[in-house]
């Protein structure tokens, strides 16, 4: 249920992101999901990739501040109100979300990547409400 996400610290510098994507491409690592939180001076890149441990090693060797963080990936229907229903369940159960990002995967469904203080709790809450969560086995090929 717990999915490995790669987090990278990036200075706001032209070309820095390209160096990163280049390193991953070179090693044939696919990026399934991708988001950047940006501040004035730097950005924090978060992504789900195939073979996260290998990607971490490669990026570390390239001098990036990188680490693996744990998240959950929830599947929701790709239609109005889909995200709202899921978030309602989470907030009703007092689970605080640190950050999240989402992407539509195909016509009928979307995937939401969530980082929360307590991943165990959010997993329990979502399963109790019959929400679908991605398994580690299928996520890296999303």
């Amino acid at each position, binding site marked *: 249920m717990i999915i490995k996400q790669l987090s990278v610290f990036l200075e706001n510098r032209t070309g820095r992101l390209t160096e990163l994507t280049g390193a991953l491409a070179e090693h044939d690592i696919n990026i399934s999901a991708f988001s950047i939180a940006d501040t004035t001076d730097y950005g924090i890149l978060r992504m789900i990739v195939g073979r996260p441990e290998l990607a971490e090693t490669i990026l570390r060797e390239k*001098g990036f*501040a990188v680490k693996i963080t744990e998240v959950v990936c929830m599947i929701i229907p790709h239609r109005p109100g889909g995200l709202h229903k899921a978030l309602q369940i989470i907030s009703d159960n007092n689970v605080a979300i640190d950050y999240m990002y989402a992407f539509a995967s195909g016509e009928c469904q979307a995937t939401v990547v969530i980082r929360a203080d307590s991943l165990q709790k959010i997993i329990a809450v979502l399963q109790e409400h019959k929400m679908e969560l991605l398994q580690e086995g299928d996520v890296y090929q999303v």
Partner: protein
Amino acid sequence: MEREELRKLQGERLREMVQRVYDKVPFYRNKLQDTGIEPGDIRSIEDLNKLPFTTKQDLRDNYPFGLFTVPQHDIVRLHASSGTTGKSTVVGYTHNDISMWTEVVARSLTMAGVTNSDIVQIAYGYGLFTGGLGVHYGAEKVGASVIPISGGNTKKQLQLMEDFGSTALACTPSYAAFLGEALVEEQIDRKKIRLKAGIFGAEPWTEEMRTQIQNLLGIKAYDIYGLSEIIGPGVSMECHCQNGMHIFEDHFIPEIINPDTCEVLPYGELGELVFTPATKEAMPLVRYRTRDLTRLHAEKCDCGRTLVRMEKCVGRSDDMLIIRGVNVFPSQVESVLLEMSETKPHYLLVVSRENNLDTLEIQVEVEPQFFSDEVKELEGLRKRIHANISSILGISASIRLVEPNTIERSMGKAQRVIDKRKLT
């Protein structure tokens, strides 16, 4: 005063001072004994070069009052400058020290043409920093009307300058230039400004800055030099010839040494400035190494004074920076980063000057093992670094988190500072 007469006076004062520190300060007694010198060996100014040097480290090692020659009840004032690892450089003054300081500042202001008809606006910081109070007492001694406005609050500075009709301004040169530009921005009619002289010091400045300040404010800008270890502002001062600062040698005996060999250099040669404040009571120092690099000139000045002149300092023999008048050592930043558990001492200080005000950016590498992927955590770290560094340095610095291994590590001495101000 003729030079021979002055040297005789310096010799008498030096002899008396050496005896005094030998009797009263264990640090100096040990130091003199270690070098095999008895106070009796010092008979004239010729013997000055037999004496050992005093450094800022000696002040730190004897923190806070270890170098005082008088009991606490004779101390009437304490000043301090920021220091590494949180410890300041502390200086103490007796009543007589304050009188002497007042006297040299009064002389300085007189050299800038300040009299009892003047209104002196003191925009140096008041407080532990010696700038504000030092100039304040001297200006009162001259009989001028003093506006103790202290630093900052530019709008108020301009308002009082106009309403009170300030005729002299004392502050750091960068703040003077900043006020000059603010005057233009606020569209204040220069005819309403009565300023005629500026007494500027506490940080290095160039002839270009002097021209700029003089034009912006319509004044003559005078350079004043001093450091708290010796007394504060008023160690030396420019006359109207603006051709070097006259050192008040009757109180502060100057020397220039080679900073590497410590050999005394003749007049005209570039080296490190050393002072022996022979008349100071509370904390006289023997051959204090200022780390400022300059030259001394003994030729009589066109103003008629025979006092030795020092050129504007061209740099430092250590890595100290002067930012907004505050002394900053890269090692202070290092000590903060070493003390914090989430950082390592991989940093770079970038100093520049925007709108005539110094800015300090400190780049700190993010440590991969402490890297959090949450903005709030990283911003929290940045704020903690900011608070810790600001409290040690005494000035605010902007903190920029950078990627690991992006700050250049050289084989020898790491480059810790990029100074874009071009002050020399």
